[in-house]
């Protein structure tokens, strides 16, 4: 069947735009940030992000020049903030692909207004994520290419049994596919930007990027198929990527890691944190660029509903972990989970549960789902909680594993903190550049969803 929706309006949970919005209104609204000189709000946000980015680069320099010893990692806790951040950022990324791919497949047309944000976010989140696995190795200058099975005269290959090697392939595939998907969606809108451009240089650049798109319907028909197919493969990809990430733990023999529930559990968590982050970014951007009429409260409400659902799944996962640990009767498993809830890192565990399971319960109330300023603290807390989830999984499992004589504690350092905070700088810098130079809403798709309808209405 054609990937083209048959009766769009029926599938819309709510009107995407106010009645009577014309194509031009949409064009203008979306193009405004690109065509006008950035507002003060943008500059403030941008310089702040740049500051964080500076912190990031300083700490990267420290780490590479002096060694991982500047971090809190030690024996027995070989992995610390770096891997926590990796999993955290990859998780964030997932919402993007989910919104653009899965919701597309399910014909959730309300997605059009936020899909572009979300995809861009995926891309930037993956960029932030990949910094960490490279940095956390003892010899990044070698790790950066030794992890890749490149032909060499010694016939030294990589170990395809290692989950870390799976990561290399999973994450690089994920990054590439997300980029292509994002770019594919951008082409018609870049063409619009090109045609609106006044300055020849802008015209030239957008012209170059839009690959000479001319809205030919022969192109459209292939394009639609391509987009549909992308959505179809990106869906299993997004599920697989976080599963593979979870294999880093599930495939090991560390008590607390060696669990079959991890793949679904990680994916649910990823979606939760991802939607939280999208909501946060969207709420801020629509305010910053007055897109309230295109990204409406109804959009936010739907996303909040999804968050509520995933929060419940995550809560279930937490519970079942404990049950399985007890039911398995394995000495080490039992201890690890008791230690999580009652040990020296119990504060981490309980802040995780609070932020990820209890706080989202507020979203049962419509008020919280629709009022941006009420949901912002919630989504921030959810992100904090999801970060703690990874912290708890990694640190509490490692610091007390099999031999009590080898137990230890993990104390992060300022460099750890700097890298974590700094990675947000990297993320938001990229987000702000994106909203400044690229259409933040899938214009052609939105028009398709909106004008099609009007036309239809007008036709009958």
């Amino acid at each position, binding site marked *: 069947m054609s990937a083209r929706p048959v009766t769009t309006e029926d599938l819309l949970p709510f009107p995407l735009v106010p009645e009577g919005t014309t194509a031009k209104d949409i064009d203008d609204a979306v193009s405004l940030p690109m065509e006008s000189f950035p507002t003060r709000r943008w500059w403030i946000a941008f310089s702040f992000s740049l500051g964080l980015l500076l912190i990031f680069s300083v700490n990267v320099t420290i780490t590479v020049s002096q*060694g991982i010893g500047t971090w809190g990692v030690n024996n*027995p806790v070989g992995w610390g903030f770096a891997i926590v951040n990796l999993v955290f950022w990859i998780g964030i990324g997932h919402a993007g692909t989910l919104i653009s791919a899965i919701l597309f497949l399910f014909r959730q047309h309300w997605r059009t207004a936020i899909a572009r944000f979300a995809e861009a976010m995926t891309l930037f989140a993956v960029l932030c994520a990949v910094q960490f696995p490279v940095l956390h190795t003892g*010899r990044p200058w070698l790790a950066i290419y030794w992890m890749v099975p490149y032909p060499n005269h010694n016939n030294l290959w990589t*170990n395809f049994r290692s989950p870390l090697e799976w990561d290399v392939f999973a994450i690089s595939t994920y990054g590439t596919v997300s980029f292509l998907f994002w770019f594919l969606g951008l082409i018609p809108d870049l063409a619009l930007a090109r045609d609106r451009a006044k300055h020849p240089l802008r015209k030239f650049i957008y012209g170059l990027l839009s690959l000479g798109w001319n809205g030919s319907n022969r192109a459209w028909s292939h394009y639609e198929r391509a987009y549909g197919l992308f959505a179809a493969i990106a869906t299993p990809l997004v599920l697989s990527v976080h599963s593979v990430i979870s294999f880093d733990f599930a495939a090991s023999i560390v008590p607390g890691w060696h669990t079959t529930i991890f793949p679904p559990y990680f994916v649910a968590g990823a979606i939760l944190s991802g939607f939280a982050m999208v909501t946060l970014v969207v709420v801020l951007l629509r305010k910053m660029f007055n897109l309230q009429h295109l990204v409406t409260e109804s959009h936010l409400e739907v996303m909040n509903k999804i968050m509520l659902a995933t929060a419940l799944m995550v809560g279930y996962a937490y519970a079942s972990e404990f049950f399985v640990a007890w039911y398995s009767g394995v000495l080490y498993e039992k201890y690890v989970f008791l230690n999580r809830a009652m040990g020296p890192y119990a504060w981490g565990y309980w802040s995780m549960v609070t932020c990820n399971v209890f706080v989202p319960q507020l979203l049962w109330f419509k008020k919280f789902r629709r009022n941006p300023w009420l949901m912002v603290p919630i989504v921030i807390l959810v992100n904090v909680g999801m970060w703690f989830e990874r912290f708890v999984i990694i640190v509490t499992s490692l610091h*007390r594993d099999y031999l009590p004589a080898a137990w230890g504690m993990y104390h992060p350092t300022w460099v750890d903190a700097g890298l974590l905070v700094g990675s947000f700088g990297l993320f938001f810098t990229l987000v702000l550049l994106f909203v400044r130079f690229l259409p933040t809403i899938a214009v052609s798709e939105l028009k398709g969803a909106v004008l099609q309808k009007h036309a239809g209405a007008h036709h009958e």
Partner: protein
Amino acid sequence: MEKEFKSKGAPPRVTALVVAAEARPISLTEGGRARLAIPIREEPNSHRSAEEQKVDGITRRSAMKFMGATMALASGLAACVRKPPRKVISRTSQPEYNHPGQALYYSSTWTDGPFPYGMLVKVQDGRPIKLDGNPDHPINKGTSSAAMQGSLLSLYDPERLRAPKGAASWAAADQQVRGALKTAKKAVLVTRATIGPSERRAISDLRSVYPALRHVVYEPLADETRRSVWRELHGQDGEWLPRFEWASVVLAIECDFLGTDGVELESIQSFSGTRVAETADDTISRLYVVEGGLSLTGTNADHRIRLRPSLAASFVRALRDAVDERTPIDAFAAANDLDAKLLGALVGDLKENRGKAVVVAGAGLPKAAHAATALLNRSLDAFNKTLEWNPQPAGLIANSKAEIEALVEDGVDVLITLGVDVVHSWSAFAKHLSAAKLSVGHGLYLDSTLSACELRLPSHHVLESWNDARPRVGIISLCQPVIMPLYDTRQEAESLLAWASEAPDAAPHTRFRDFLKARLEAEELEVGPGMEVAWETALHQGVILGPTNAFVPAELDVPRAEALAATPLQAGAYELVLTPHSSVWDGRFGLNAWLLEVPDPVTKLMWDNAACMSASTAKRLSVETGYLVKLSTPDGSVELPALVQPGLADGVIMTALGMGRAYASAPDEVFGTNTWPLIPSEGRVQFDISVSPTGEETSLVRSQSEFSMHSRPIVLEATLGEFRANLEAIQEKRSKEHGEPIYEPFKYGGGHKWEMAIDLARCVGCNACVIACQAENNIAIVGKEECGNGREMHWMRIDQYRDPVSHDEDELSFHHQPMLCQQCDYAPCENVCPVNATNHDDEGLNSMVYNRCIGTRYCANNCPYKVRRFNFFNFQKRFVEDPVQKLLFNPQVTVRQIGVMEKCTFCVQRIKGAEFEAARTGSEMSDGVVRTACQQACPASAISFGDVNLRAPAGPAEVAVKQQSARSFLVLEELRVRPNVTYLARLRNEAGEEAPAPKKQAEERGDE
């Protein structure tokens, strides 16, 4: 003689006399920095014609050039890798016998320590790189201690004093000393107790030249209290040596004979030999330890009785009364609320085993306790059965502080200290040094004593010195230099000779050798013209063994002993037990990073000492680990951190002496706390001290924080009775594997399969293996801070576990478990390495490819034994860049860089060396031809290593036999990682189960 040369385990050795005198092994004194680089020889390719060498018209040589260029480029790019700079300069003149890359072994004697052990030095390309015990030495029999291993590090210590200070040159210094001695009315020479016979002779010669010169012996940790009691009671000097191999019941009172009390290497060997049972008929000795502190011996006890040291004497008296059936022990037990049942059992055991029991009292106890012990041993008929009289102890009789004080207080003209840091342990002595007209300090470092001296003379390290020692009657142990002096130093004895005569020093570094040789010829040996041969043989073997007939001392003076034993003693609320430090002893090794970093076997403290106290004492004082407490004694007071150490007697504080030294270059960087101000005039126990928390806190660094086994199958144990009743007792406790693997297990070729077995019944937990491993494998020192961050690098560690034996948290039984890479067949670390940097070789070794490692640390996470170590920083930088320190490295082991994972390799360099040798000579590899560093050092011979596929006649290997033992088990077996290290369970010999005579005695007597 030939046979002795080829004695087992001892590689061919050469004598050093030529090395030192004629041939001049490499010296580093002037600009010879890079002279040690191993010359690189190009592969001989004579069998290949020029054509063959051409590859597509490119000759091998030109190809090399291209590669060279690329390499240069690459290294330029990879500058950030911080590869240590390397100079390759081939040596023009080689030491004789030297084949590049091939090690030479020299016999020598370790005269640094409290007891002179035989030493076997491995010299590679002219530099000593490993110390081990001399297999021909009758006392340590090829084993070594941590301190002994450690003294290698101090040889290359850049902080060593490199030239005389206070005088322009040695000649000038000698002039000054001679002048001063000539005119001196009163001159005093202070030496250690453990100086060799020839040194003693040199001193007496010197004194004959300068009659005003008095010789005093300062040895703060000398066994003087105990020895004086014996002297007094037997009317002659000498010492009782416990013969644990003959004893079926051992009672140690505040006596750490496995650690710091006496000849520990000998004691460990003989004691652990009596702890092994394999069949239902076998039996083992039973060890009771009665102590206030907690000693390594205490952790190995079958029964510990916590008793304040002030009660030691009365306890022993009560025991004697009970043994002699005058009054039962119950009264004493009730009075001091001790477990009457247990004490009853003890008395029973002692009574039943007259002549087969031995009681040893710690050197730290006051005279009364020793007198009482002597009486008890007499009642037990221990003398000349389980105790052997040695009329000639290794050390001289030490003078007490009072005697020395009396001698020097009213000023001396010349005050000379030879190789002893007096001021560290006796700060008041500094003022005497400054008061003297001329003060001369002779030592390795610019330590607190030397700094206080006017003339500061640098000594040779033991590895640069000639010397001899007489550890026992009938044993002469020789010490020969294995490297030319690194600096402009001179050994103390040389100085003595130089001061004794005006004659200029004709042959430097050999003067004392000739003196020593002459003395031997004149006094010790009857060889006549055969001296040269005898001398060479002696140096080759390292020891000269004379007749050793049993000596029987004069009868014990009982009334005198009873009088002495009854000396009353009043104790206060808190008592203080001062012990020698487990590795730095009295502080003489207090600047040795290896020995400072190795965790104390009992407290697991690193780089530090603390005021240890039982949990209840801590509660009473309301302090916790890390709180500073002030210990005040009549002799002085010290502030140091508290450490809650379950197992001590209540009201007893225990702390180690010898810490608190610092390099002259960094005086603020003090390692631990100097507790010498607390030392009493007699013994090492303060019976009435006051303890007050200061309210401040500090952090103590320990290698282990959790001591409970959490009922996991880590260390298995059974009581002897349990085991003899059911030989499967241990096997039944093993944790079994479940299910089947999803893969076909890998098939080995059936070649070598290297495995290890560790007998926990023998292991006592001394740290010899840890340091031996560190020395053999170029393991980095990380320093206190990084230890605190959990980044110590020891490939081998000794885990300690404690089991409660009663509701009282201070009533514990202890386990020591050496933990190293288990070389798992199904190694979990290998599966997770993304770059195959750790993988399995076809001989069952879990290899680590440092060059390939990128440092993801995933392997370490996935290692259930947590034996992998990561280079978080460039720990070795300091050593690699220091021209002297880098001489320490074993060239057969990669020096690991930053960012690389490392771990125990079963000393793969030794395995491959042996295999290569076997291939070269076409001979079969026999069992024991490969010995790991830990195995070689272990004084308890707890470690066996070998090829389990070794077939008859050469096999089966010892390790294969041990794997079949009824006591064998694997750690965390149910994980199905198939470790290749098999542990043999320890058996506790609990009171109540009868303890028949140990095997050895049974054989002798021919009974059963």
